C-alpha cells in the first residue's frame, strides 16, 4: 500500500513532469537542426540545484 509521503512525492513528480512537457516543447526546433538535444544536455546538470539547475535552463 502506498504511504502518504510516497503519494505526495508522486504528485510532486507528476506536476514537475507536466510542467516540463511544455518547456521541453519550447526547446524543440521544428524544422530546424539542433546541436544538442534536451535529453543530452540534461546529463551535464546536477539534480540538486533548484534555483540554477535544469528546471531553470528549460525555462530559458
Amino acid at each position, binding site marked *: 500500500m502506498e504511504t502518504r509521503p510516497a503519494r505526495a512525492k508522486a504528485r510532486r513528480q507528476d506536476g514537475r513532469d507536466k510542467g516540463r512537457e511544455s518547456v521541453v516543447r519550447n*526547446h524543440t526546433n521544428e524544422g530546424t*537542426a539542433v*546541436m*544538442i538535444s534536451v535529453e543530452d544536455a540534461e546529463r551535464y546538470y546536477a539534480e540538486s*540545484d533548484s*534555483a540554477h539547475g535544469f528546471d*531553470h535552463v528549460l*525555462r*530559458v
Partner: protein
Amino acid sequence: MRIGREEGADLEIVQAAALLHDVGRPIEEATGVSHAEASAAMAREILAGRAAPERIEAVACAIAQHRYRGTQTPQSLEARVLFDADKLDAIGAIGVARAFAVAGAQRQHLWAEVAEDVAARPAEEGRDDLRNADHTPMHEFRFKLVKLRDGMFTSAGRRLAEERHRVMAAFFDRLEREVAGDA
C-alpha cells in the same frame, strides 16, 4: 526560444546556448571561476564535432556574455536573446522564488536592512554576494533584480519584463512593509 523566434535569431545557436549556459556552475562553486566562462569552455568541449567551429564559437560567446555580474556585454543577437531570457527567469514570481531558494540553500536570512550604497555597486563587484552570509533576497533585489527590466537588450525581452518586474517589485515592497510592521 520564444524571444529568439520573435527577434529572428539563429535558433540552433540560441537553443544550444540556452541548454548549456549554466553547465559550469559546479566549477564556479568549487573554484570561484565565473560560471559563464566555465560554461562556455564546457560548451566548446561538449559541442565539438557537432557543428561547424564558427557556430560552436557563437554558442560559447553567447554563454560567456550572459552573466549579469560579469564584465562582458552580449554582442551578437543570439547572445542578447540568451541574456534577456536568462534575466527574465530572475524576475517575476519565479525570480522571487529563486531568490529565496538561493538564500535558503546558503542559510541566509529572509530579510535584512540594505545599505543605500548596495544598489550603486558595479555589477561585477557582486560576484561573491550569493555566498555571503549577510546577503539576503532583499539585497539581491536592490543590487540586481530591480535593474534587470531596464537592462534588457531585445524588444521582446523589454516587453516581457514589464509585468514580471511589477509583480516582483510589489512583493518586495510588501515584504518591506510587513517587516516594518506597516502591513
